[in-house]
Protein backbone atom coordinates (compact mmCIF):
# COMPACT_ATOMS: atom_id res chain seq x y z
CA UNK A 1 0.00 0.00 0.00
CA UNK A 2 1.18 3.51 -0.82
CA UNK A 3 1.02 6.45 1.55
CA UNK A 4 1.79 10.07 0.73
CA UNK A 5 2.63 12.30 3.69
CA UNK A 6 2.66 16.07 3.20
CA UNK A 7 4.69 17.86 5.87
CA UNK A 8 7.71 16.30 7.51
CA UNK A 9 7.69 17.94 10.92
CA UNK A 10 7.55 16.06 14.19
CA UNK A 11 4.13 14.64 13.36
CA UNK A 12 4.50 13.92 9.65
CA UNK A 13 7.91 12.27 10.02
CA UNK A 14 6.73 10.05 12.88
CA UNK A 15 3.67 8.92 10.86
CA UNK A 16 5.92 8.20 7.87
CA UNK A 17 8.31 6.07 9.95
CA UNK A 18 5.46 4.23 11.67
CA UNK A 19 3.63 3.39 8.43
CA UNK A 20 6.86 2.25 6.84
CA UNK A 21 7.53 -0.10 9.76
CA UNK A 22 4.07 -1.51 9.14
CA UNK A 23 4.96 -2.31 5.55
CA UNK A 24 3.66 0.71 3.63
CA UNK A 25 5.47 2.31 0.70
CA UNK A 26 5.82 5.87 1.95
CA UNK A 27 6.57 9.12 0.10
CA UNK A 28 7.13 12.30 2.09
CA UNK A 29 6.89 15.89 0.82
CA UNK A 30 8.21 18.95 2.64
CA UNK A 31 9.10 22.49 1.62
CA UNK A 32 12.32 22.30 3.55
CA UNK A 33 15.12 20.00 2.43
CA UNK A 34 16.48 19.76 5.98
CA UNK A 35 13.28 18.05 7.12
CA UNK A 36 14.64 14.83 5.57
CA UNK A 37 16.91 14.43 8.60
CA UNK A 38 13.79 13.84 10.72
CA UNK A 39 13.35 10.53 8.90
CA UNK A 40 16.66 9.24 10.25
CA UNK A 41 19.77 7.96 8.49
CA UNK A 42 18.17 4.91 6.99
CA UNK A 43 15.04 6.30 5.29
CA UNK A 44 14.21 3.90 2.48
CA UNK A 45 11.11 5.69 1.18
CA UNK A 46 10.93 8.68 -1.18
CA UNK A 47 11.37 12.28 -0.16
CA UNK A 48 10.50 15.27 -2.35
CA UNK A 49 11.11 18.95 -1.71
CA UNK A 50 8.25 21.29 -2.62
CA UNK A 51 4.86 22.70 -1.65
CA UNK A 52 1.95 20.33 -1.13
CA UNK A 53 -0.42 22.57 -3.09
CA UNK A 54 1.70 22.14 -6.22
CA UNK A 55 -0.23 19.62 -8.32
CA UNK A 56 2.77 18.74 -10.50
CA UNK A 57 4.73 17.90 -7.38
CA UNK A 58 1.85 15.81 -5.99
CA UNK A 59 1.80 13.85 -9.26
CA UNK A 60 5.55 13.39 -9.13
CA UNK A 61 5.13 12.14 -5.56
CA UNK A 62 2.76 9.49 -6.88
CA UNK A 63 -0.56 10.81 -5.55
CA UNK A 64 -2.39 9.04 -8.38
CA UNK A 65 -1.29 5.68 -7.00
CA UNK A 66 -1.65 6.61 -3.32
CA UNK A 67 -4.01 4.60 -1.10
CA UNK A 68 -3.75 7.14 1.70
CA UNK A 69 -2.80 10.82 1.91
CA UNK A 70 -1.92 12.57 5.17
CA UNK A 71 -1.80 16.39 5.27
CA UNK A 72 0.28 17.32 8.31
CA UNK A 73 2.04 20.60 7.51
CA UNK A 74 2.20 23.35 10.12
CA UNK A 75 -0.59 25.27 8.35
CA UNK A 76 -4.22 24.34 9.02
CA UNK A 77 -5.41 26.01 5.85
CA UNK A 78 -2.73 24.40 3.72
CA UNK A 79 -3.78 21.03 5.12
CA UNK A 80 -7.49 21.45 4.41
CA UNK A 81 -6.79 22.61 0.87
CA UNK A 82 -4.39 19.72 0.17
CA UNK A 83 -6.91 17.33 1.72
CA UNK A 84 -9.73 18.54 -0.52
CA UNK A 85 -7.51 18.41 -3.62
CA UNK A 86 -6.56 14.81 -2.76
CA UNK A 87 -10.22 13.88 -2.19
CA UNK A 88 -11.90 15.71 -5.04
CA UNK A 89 -9.29 15.96 -7.74
CA UNK A 90 -7.42 12.70 -7.23
CA UNK A 91 -10.28 10.71 -5.74
CA UNK A 92 -8.24 9.32 -2.85
CA UNK A 93 -10.51 7.42 -0.47
CA UNK A 94 -8.37 7.72 2.64
CA UNK A 95 -7.42 11.34 3.26
CA UNK A 96 -6.46 12.39 6.78
CA UNK A 97 -5.92 16.03 7.65
CA UNK A 98 -4.42 17.64 10.72
CA UNK A 99 -6.14 20.84 11.88
CA UNK A 100 -5.01 22.50 15.10
CA UNK A 101 -7.88 24.99 15.37
CA UNK A 102 -10.90 23.16 16.89
CA UNK A 103 -13.46 25.46 15.21
CA UNK A 104 -12.06 24.88 11.73
CA UNK A 105 -11.71 21.18 12.55
CA UNK A 106 -15.46 21.01 13.32
CA UNK A 107 -16.33 22.89 10.13
CA UNK A 108 -14.37 20.56 7.87
CA UNK A 109 -15.46 17.44 9.77
CA UNK A 110 -19.06 18.47 9.12
CA UNK A 111 -18.19 18.71 5.42
CA UNK A 112 -17.12 15.06 5.39
CA UNK A 113 -13.38 15.29 5.86
CA UNK A 114 -11.42 12.99 8.14
CA UNK A 115 -9.94 15.66 10.40
CA UNK A 116 -7.72 15.03 13.37
CA UNK A 117 -7.52 17.91 15.86
CA UNK A 118 -4.66 17.42 18.34
CA UNK A 119 -5.76 20.51 20.26
CA UNK A 120 -9.14 18.97 21.00
CA UNK A 121 -7.51 15.72 22.05
CA UNK A 122 -5.22 17.66 24.39
CA UNK A 123 -8.16 19.58 25.86
CA UNK A 124 -10.14 16.38 26.47
CA UNK A 125 -7.17 14.51 27.92
CA UNK A 126 -6.14 17.35 30.20
CA UNK A 127 -9.70 17.93 31.40
CA UNK A 128 -10.08 14.22 32.09
CA UNK A 129 -6.76 14.24 33.97
CA UNK A 130 -8.04 17.02 36.23
CA UNK A 131 -11.34 15.21 36.80
CA UNK A 132 -9.51 12.05 37.83
CA UNK A 133 -7.44 13.83 40.48
CA UNK A 134 -8.45 12.89 43.97
CA UNK A 135 -9.23 16.14 45.74
CA UNK A 136 -9.64 15.72 49.54
CA UNK A 137 -13.31 16.07 50.43
CA UNK A 138 -12.68 18.85 52.96
CA UNK A 139 -11.42 21.10 50.17
CA UNK A 140 -14.41 20.64 47.88
CA UNK A 141 -16.51 23.77 48.01
CA UNK A 142 -20.16 23.26 47.28
Amino acid sequence: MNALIIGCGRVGSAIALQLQREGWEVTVVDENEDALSRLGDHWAGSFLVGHGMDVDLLREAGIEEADAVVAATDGDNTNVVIGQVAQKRFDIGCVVVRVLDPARADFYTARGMRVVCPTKTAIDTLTEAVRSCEIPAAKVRT
Partner: protein
Amino acid sequence: MYVVVAGGGKVGANVARSLLRLGHEVTLVEQRRDRFDRLEEEFEHQVQRGDATELHVLERAGLARPPDLVLALTGDDEDNLVIAQIAKEKYGVEKVIARVNDPRNQAHFDLLGISPTVCATSSIMALVEHEVPEHDLIHLLELRQENLEIVEVQIDRDSPSAGKRIEALDLPDGARLISVMRAGHAEIAVGSTQLEAGDQVLAILEPGKEDELRRVLLRR
Protein backbone atom coordinates in the same frame (compact mmCIF):
# COMPACT_ATOMS: atom_id res chain seq x y z
CA MET B 1 -23.91 47.40 1.35
CA TYR B 2 -21.89 45.70 4.10
CA VAL B 3 -18.51 44.32 3.01
CA VAL B 4 -15.94 42.34 4.99
CA VAL B 5 -12.43 42.59 3.56
CA ALA B 6 -10.01 39.91 4.76
CA GLY B 7 -6.38 40.93 4.40
CA GLY B 8 -5.05 44.46 4.93
CA GLY B 9 -2.04 44.46 2.63
CA LYS B 10 -1.81 46.83 -0.33
CA VAL B 11 -4.70 45.19 -2.17
CA GLY B 12 -7.05 44.84 0.80
CA ALA B 13 -6.37 48.34 2.17
CA ASN B 14 -6.85 50.02 -1.20
CA VAL B 15 -10.06 48.11 -1.86
CA ALA B 16 -11.40 48.95 1.62
CA ARG B 17 -10.58 52.64 1.10
CA SER B 18 -12.31 52.66 -2.29
CA LEU B 19 -15.42 50.97 -0.90
CA LEU B 20 -15.62 53.45 1.97
CA ARG B 21 -15.37 56.32 -0.48
CA LEU B 22 -18.33 54.87 -2.35
CA GLY B 23 -20.27 55.03 0.90
CA HIS B 24 -20.30 51.34 1.81
CA GLU B 25 -19.96 49.94 5.30
CA VAL B 26 -16.67 48.08 5.58
CA THR B 27 -14.81 45.95 8.09
CA LEU B 28 -11.18 45.23 7.25
CA VAL B 29 -9.44 42.32 8.99
CA GLU B 30 -5.64 42.18 9.31
CA GLN B 31 -3.57 39.74 11.31
CA ARG B 32 -0.13 41.34 11.45
CA ARG B 33 0.39 43.74 14.34
CA ASP B 34 2.63 46.19 12.44
CA ARG B 35 0.20 46.47 9.55
CA PHE B 36 -2.80 46.68 11.84
CA ASP B 37 -1.28 49.58 13.79
CA ARG B 38 -0.77 51.56 10.59
CA LEU B 39 -4.23 50.68 9.25
CA GLU B 40 -5.88 51.66 12.53
CA GLU B 41 -4.64 55.23 12.15
CA GLU B 42 -6.56 55.51 8.91
CA PHE B 43 -9.51 53.13 9.31
CA GLU B 44 -10.03 53.45 13.08
CA HIS B 45 -12.85 51.15 14.27
CA GLN B 46 -13.36 49.84 10.73
CA VAL B 47 -10.29 47.62 10.97
CA GLN B 48 -10.04 44.64 13.30
CA ARG B 49 -7.01 42.60 14.20
CA GLY B 50 -7.05 38.84 13.85
CA ASP B 51 -6.65 35.78 11.64
CA ALA B 52 -9.59 35.91 9.23
CA THR B 53 -9.61 32.12 8.94
CA GLU B 54 -10.61 31.84 12.63
CA LEU B 55 -14.34 31.66 13.17
CA HIS B 56 -14.42 33.93 16.22
CA VAL B 57 -12.53 36.61 14.28
CA LEU B 58 -14.97 36.35 11.41
CA GLU B 59 -17.90 36.52 13.79
CA ARG B 60 -16.53 39.62 15.45
CA ALA B 61 -16.29 41.12 11.95
CA GLY B 62 -20.01 40.48 11.50
CA LEU B 63 -20.04 37.36 9.30
CA ALA B 64 -23.21 36.19 11.01
CA ARG B 65 -25.23 39.21 9.78
CA PRO B 66 -24.23 38.09 7.04
CA PRO B 67 -22.39 40.69 4.90
CA ASP B 68 -23.56 41.36 1.34
CA LEU B 69 -20.06 40.67 0.14
CA VAL B 70 -16.87 39.08 1.48
CA LEU B 71 -13.54 39.77 -0.20
CA ALA B 72 -10.76 37.26 0.54
CA LEU B 73 -7.70 39.30 -0.39
CA THR B 74 -4.82 38.01 1.73
CA GLY B 75 -1.45 37.15 0.23
CA ASP B 76 -1.96 33.44 0.91
CA ASP B 77 -4.11 31.41 -1.46
CA GLU B 78 -4.85 28.69 1.10
CA ASP B 79 -6.16 31.34 3.50
CA ASN B 80 -8.30 32.94 0.79
CA LEU B 81 -9.74 29.53 -0.10
CA VAL B 82 -10.65 28.74 3.49
CA ILE B 83 -12.12 32.22 4.14
CA ALA B 84 -14.27 31.86 1.02
CA GLN B 85 -15.45 28.36 1.98
CA ILE B 86 -16.34 29.37 5.54
CA ALA B 87 -18.09 32.57 4.42
CA LYS B 88 -20.21 30.77 1.84
CA GLU B 89 -20.98 27.54 3.57
CA LYS B 90 -21.03 28.37 7.27
CA TYR B 91 -22.46 31.87 7.16
CA GLY B 92 -24.39 31.74 3.89
CA VAL B 93 -22.67 34.79 2.40
CA GLU B 94 -23.96 34.95 -1.14
CA LYS B 95 -21.19 36.89 -2.81
CA VAL B 96 -17.54 36.10 -2.23
CA ILE B 97 -14.66 37.28 -4.36
CA ALA B 98 -11.27 35.67 -3.80
CA ARG B 99 -7.78 36.77 -4.77
CA VAL B 100 -5.48 34.22 -6.38
CA ASN B 101 -1.82 35.03 -5.76
CA ASP B 102 -0.16 32.13 -7.56
CA PRO B 103 -1.90 31.38 -10.88
CA ARG B 104 -1.02 27.71 -10.44
CA ASN B 105 -3.50 27.65 -7.56
CA GLN B 106 -6.38 28.76 -9.80
CA ALA B 107 -7.29 25.11 -10.33
CA HIS B 108 -7.84 24.67 -6.57
CA PHE B 109 -10.30 27.58 -6.46
CA ASP B 110 -12.13 26.15 -9.47
CA LEU B 111 -12.18 22.67 -7.91
CA LEU B 112 -13.71 23.99 -4.70
CA GLY B 113 -16.26 26.16 -6.49
CA ILE B 114 -14.82 29.49 -5.36
CA SER B 115 -15.80 32.00 -8.01
CA PRO B 116 -15.28 34.74 -9.04
CA THR B 117 -11.55 34.99 -8.51
CA VAL B 118 -9.05 37.67 -9.44
CA CYS B 119 -5.41 36.97 -10.23
CA ALA B 120 -3.12 39.93 -10.97
CA THR B 121 -0.49 37.70 -12.61
CA SER B 122 -3.01 36.15 -14.98
CA SER B 123 -4.44 39.56 -15.88
CA ILE B 124 -0.98 40.92 -16.61
CA MET B 125 -0.10 37.87 -18.71
CA ALA B 126 -3.32 38.26 -20.71
CA LEU B 127 -2.30 41.86 -21.45
CA VAL B 128 1.21 40.74 -22.38
CA GLU B 129 -0.30 38.26 -24.84
CA HIS B 130 -2.43 41.03 -26.26
CA GLU B 131 0.43 43.49 -26.59
CA VAL B 132 3.23 41.22 -27.78
CA PRO B 133 2.70 40.38 -31.45
CA GLU B 134 4.57 37.06 -31.33
CA HIS B 135 1.65 35.59 -29.47
CA ASP B 136 -0.45 34.83 -32.54
CA LEU B 137 -3.40 33.54 -30.54
CA ILE B 138 -4.62 35.86 -27.82
CA HIS B 139 -6.83 34.79 -24.94
CA LEU B 140 -9.53 37.39 -24.52
CA LEU B 141 -11.95 35.77 -22.14
CA GLU B 142 -12.21 32.63 -20.07
CA LEU B 143 -15.74 31.33 -19.49
CA ARG B 144 -14.85 29.10 -16.62
CA GLN B 145 -18.29 27.74 -15.82
CA GLU B 146 -18.96 26.92 -19.44
CA ASN B 147 -15.44 25.52 -19.87
CA LEU B 148 -14.98 27.63 -23.01
CA GLU B 149 -12.68 30.44 -23.97
CA ILE B 150 -12.72 33.22 -26.52
CA VAL B 151 -9.52 33.93 -28.46
CA GLU B 152 -8.42 36.33 -31.16
CA VAL B 153 -6.35 35.21 -34.14
CA GLN B 154 -4.65 37.46 -36.66
CA ILE B 155 -4.71 36.07 -40.22
CA ASP B 156 -1.72 37.05 -42.35
CA ARG B 157 -0.57 36.52 -45.95
CA ASP B 158 1.11 33.17 -45.21
CA SER B 159 -1.86 31.77 -43.32
CA PRO B 160 -3.38 28.73 -45.07
CA SER B 161 -6.86 30.04 -44.25
CA ALA B 162 -6.35 33.36 -46.10
CA GLY B 163 -8.57 33.38 -49.20
CA LYS B 164 -10.72 30.48 -47.97
CA ARG B 165 -14.37 30.41 -46.99
CA ILE B 166 -15.02 29.39 -43.40
CA GLU B 167 -17.15 26.40 -44.46
CA ALA B 168 -14.10 25.04 -46.32
CA LEU B 169 -11.92 25.06 -43.20
CA ASP B 170 -11.41 21.85 -41.29
CA LEU B 171 -12.04 23.40 -37.87
CA PRO B 172 -11.49 21.10 -34.89
CA ASP B 173 -14.49 19.82 -32.95
CA GLY B 174 -15.15 22.15 -30.07
CA ALA B 175 -14.03 25.30 -31.91
CA ARG B 176 -16.14 27.84 -33.86
CA LEU B 177 -15.36 31.19 -35.41
CA ILE B 178 -17.48 34.03 -34.05
CA SER B 179 -16.63 37.15 -35.99
CA VAL B 180 -14.23 38.65 -38.50
CA MET B 181 -12.89 42.17 -38.08
CA ARG B 182 -11.69 43.76 -41.31
CA ALA B 183 -10.68 47.39 -41.80
CA GLY B 184 -12.22 48.41 -38.50
CA HIS B 185 -15.54 46.72 -39.20
CA ALA B 186 -16.68 43.48 -37.55
CA GLU B 187 -19.05 40.94 -39.05
CA ILE B 188 -20.51 37.74 -37.63
CA ALA B 189 -18.66 34.79 -39.11
CA VAL B 190 -20.86 32.54 -41.30
CA GLY B 191 -19.99 29.65 -43.57
CA SER B 192 -19.71 31.83 -46.66
CA THR B 193 -17.43 34.42 -45.03
CA GLN B 194 -14.10 34.46 -46.84
CA LEU B 195 -11.02 35.06 -44.68
CA GLU B 196 -8.39 37.50 -45.88
CA ALA B 197 -4.92 38.51 -44.79
CA GLY B 198 -5.17 41.16 -42.09
CA ASP B 199 -8.44 39.81 -40.65
CA GLN B 200 -8.78 39.61 -36.90
CA VAL B 201 -10.88 36.56 -36.15
CA LEU B 202 -12.62 35.83 -32.86
CA ALA B 203 -13.12 32.18 -32.03
CA ILE B 204 -14.78 30.30 -29.19
CA LEU B 205 -13.28 26.98 -28.21
CA GLU B 206 -12.76 24.41 -25.52
CA PRO B 207 -9.50 24.91 -23.62
CA GLY B 208 -6.78 22.72 -25.12
CA LYS B 209 -7.98 23.11 -28.73
CA GLU B 210 -5.70 26.12 -29.33
CA ASP B 211 -3.01 24.20 -31.20
CA GLU B 212 -5.48 22.54 -33.56
CA LEU B 213 -7.15 25.88 -34.28
CA ARG B 214 -3.76 27.49 -34.84
CA ARG B 215 -2.87 24.76 -37.33
CA VAL B 216 -6.04 25.21 -39.36
CA LEU B 217 -5.94 29.00 -39.41
CA LEU B 218 -2.23 29.78 -39.29
CA ARG B 219 -0.25 26.52 -39.69
CA ARG B 220 2.32 27.39 -37.03
